[in-house]
């Protein structure tokens, strides 16, 4: 095991340095050396440090700034020693933080390891960084989100902030210390990119979380800081701009919907991020708006920096490849020289107008074999490819935070929009009839209703659910941030997805990725990823005409889920919890291994390569 030197850079604010060192000393440091670089402090820091025999002190005559101060520490350390750069405003709340970082750095090609950082109030501050060549403004991944234990696995990232950075000595031997081009800002991203060019990966160790009580160790005012920031940004752009642009090997125009709480929008956001990660420069245009089937203008803000940047990119008049991702009656809006229509539907066929427009595309994408077969049956003559959708394992995994019912009830959970397709009355009645109010079990339904013609309370009342039957609770028209949904799933014991038909089913896949056993209708797109090894497929009695308000379903059919089988499966899961848990764990493993957005993006990249995008 290599020797390790922890370098704490301090400038005044002894209160912060004292807390940092006190909490640091209480952790498992092994034989690591602690070196405090006093960056010319003028307060009590110098003589206070002299009182700490377990700390080696390097005193600098003046404040040399972050870069030179840390480089002085690196130069003073044993050259054979791995280095951990630490800010003095860190608070160490995890005893094994250093052994974990060290273990993460053990792989031969890992050069730099960072960790999760949280604000003192518990919100996530950092789980790695990325920088877009459009703006050259580094962004911290996950920043400002509530900590629901997202990003807790080890992951490769473009960069990390150097508030806590484990740097292997081999990296320092190859590329030296922090670049002196930068007085402050950008030096950490620059270092990670230099390490990458030298063949070293940068990783965030998801098992380590430290508190970063951000206080800049500077006496400069905000105007001066902005001047330094802009100066460093210009240097960074000159140094890395071309190389960062060069990581895009393909370009595509994505015409879709982003800033609404719809399934297409949610999946669009994920696909755009994943495509960017795979080296696709994505341009975006809103598919709907005035004079379309959905005439509502799109809100400007996506509350996601990367998506806002993508949204602001200029689109050429005649882009090379364009993908319309939305309803098939919008395919005619495709602006590309090579036109792709990407759609899905919940019934066993596609409307004639959709097929007509699909036949004007160069090729068509659908997420399931179910939809592929359906559109071919309805007369598609163009090539059709199955592009699965996916799940984000950083937010949907079994380790996500949970707030289960403290009364110990077994909780079945279902999320749906009230309407014919989701067939909520089937679930509510089956549950209410199968269980009794005396049993410690509950059905929790998160229901959305945006149809003013639907009187939800009256419709539920008309179901005449028994007081003595299984107890049901409802979450009506609540909108949770998507990143928090994993915590909702993890707070239940079994997920229910018993609709009549699905074009995909992101909530089901997300719940499975979180390790929940799921009862899901064995029909439609579910059959792509639901099988008895990872879930409980709900048999159907056959198909029935798809009668609903939605005009796209006219003349087609969907599933008729078997209510007796539904009751039997709910009872089975309730009484065989170990088996159900094991099935949920198998689901989580399968989702993470084969069904992420990265998998979806790579499949798209395969098509783009074949097209020549």
């Amino acid at each position, binding site marked *: 095991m290599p020797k390790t030197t922890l370098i704490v850079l301090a400038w005044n604010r002894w209160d912060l340095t004292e807390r940092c060192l006190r909490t640091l000393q209480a952790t498992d440091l092994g034989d690591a050396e602690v070196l405090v670089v006093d960056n010319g402090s003028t307060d009590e820091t110098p003589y206070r440090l002299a009182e700490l025999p377990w700390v080696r002190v390097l005193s600098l005559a003046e404040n040399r700034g972050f870069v030179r101060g840390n480089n002085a520490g690196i130069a003073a350390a044993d050259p054979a020693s791995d280095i951990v750069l630490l800010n003095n405003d860190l608070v160490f709340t995890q005893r094994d933080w250093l052994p974990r970082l060290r273990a993460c750095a053990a792989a031969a090609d890992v050069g730099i390891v960072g960790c999760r950082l949280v604000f003192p109030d518990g919100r996530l501050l950092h789980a790695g960084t990325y920088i877009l060549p459009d703006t050259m403004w580094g962004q911290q991944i996950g920043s400002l989100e509530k900590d629901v234990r997202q990003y807790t696995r080890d992951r490769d990232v473009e960069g990390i902030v150097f508030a806590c950075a484990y740097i292997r000595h081999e990296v320092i031997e190859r590329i030296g210390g922090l670049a002196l081009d930068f007085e402050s800002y950008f030096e950490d991203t620059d270092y990670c990119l230099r390490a990458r060019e030298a063949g070293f990966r940068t990783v965030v160790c998801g098992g380590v979380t430290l508190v970063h009580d951000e206080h800049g160790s500077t006496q400069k005012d905000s105007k001066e800081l902005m001047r330094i920031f802009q100066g460093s940004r210009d240097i960074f752009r000159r140094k890395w701009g071309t190389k960062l642009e060069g990581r895009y090997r393909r370009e595509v125009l994505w015409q879709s919907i982003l800033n609404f709480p719809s399934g297409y929008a949610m999946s669009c956001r994920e696909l755009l991020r994943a495509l960017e990660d795979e080296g696709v420069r994505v341009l975006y245009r809103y598919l709907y708006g005035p004079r379309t089937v959905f005439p509502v203008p799109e809100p400007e803000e996506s509350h996601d920096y990367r998506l806002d940047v993508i949204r602001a990119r200029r689109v050429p008049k005649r882009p090379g490849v364009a993908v319309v991702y939305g309803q098939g009656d919008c395919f005619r809006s495709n602006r590309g020289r090579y036109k792709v229509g990407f759609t899905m539907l919940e019934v066993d066929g596609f409307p004639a107008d959709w097929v007509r427009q699909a036949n004007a595309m160069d090729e068509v994408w659908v997420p399931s074999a179910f939809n592929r077969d359906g559109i071919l049956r309805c007369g598609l003559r163009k090539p059709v490819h199955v592009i699965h959708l996916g799940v984000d394992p950083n937010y949907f995994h079994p380790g996500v935070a949970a707030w289960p019912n*403290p009364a110990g009830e077994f909780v079945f959970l279902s999320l749906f929009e009230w309407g014919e397709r989701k067939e909520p009355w089937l679930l509510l009645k089956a549950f209410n009839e199968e269980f009794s109010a005396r049993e410690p079990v*509950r059905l929790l339904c998160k229901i959305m209703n*945006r149809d003013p013609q639907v009187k939800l309370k009256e419709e539920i009342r008309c179901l005449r659910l028994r007081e003595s039957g299984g107890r049901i*609770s409802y*979450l009506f*028209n*609540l*909108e949770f*941030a998507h990143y928090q949904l994993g915590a*909702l799933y993890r707070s239940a014991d079994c997920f229910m997805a018993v609709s009549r038909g699905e074009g995909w089913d992101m909530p089901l896949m997300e719940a499975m990725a979180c390790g929940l056993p799921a009862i899901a209708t064995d029909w439609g797109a579910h059959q792509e990823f639901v099988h008895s090894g990872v879930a409980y497929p709900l048999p159907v009695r056959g198909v029935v005409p798809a009668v609903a308000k939605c005009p796209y379903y006219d003349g087609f059919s969907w599933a008729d889920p078997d209510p007796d089988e539904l009751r039997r499966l709910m009872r089975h899961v309730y009484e065989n919890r170990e088996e159900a848990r094991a099935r949920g764990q198998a689901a989580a493993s399968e989702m993470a291994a084969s069904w992420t957005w990265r998998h979806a993006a790579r499949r798209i990249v395969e098509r783009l390569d074949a097209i020549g995008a």
Partner: protein
Amino acid sequence: MVMEPLADEPEIARLTARVAALEAALEERSRELRLIQRYVCHRDLVLIARLRSGLPPLPRGAYEPAFWHETTDLAAADVEQTLLDLWTSLIPPAPREL
């Protein structure tokens, strides 16, 4: 033989009177609740009982159709707060809280 009066007899008398007063208060409270019960639903009864006992009211979560205000608007919510609120609303108050 004449029994000497016990030294703590006044204390016993005071406590006896106190118990009688509490029993009377309890009887009055039960009568009130039986009366109120005729006119209000179970949840309101629990609420009144909690407030009368100096306990905080039940959470205002609308987790049953009867307590939900029909709307097609979406309300932003936090998963942790919502679930804690929901679970709290489901736990019946212990008898001593009434």
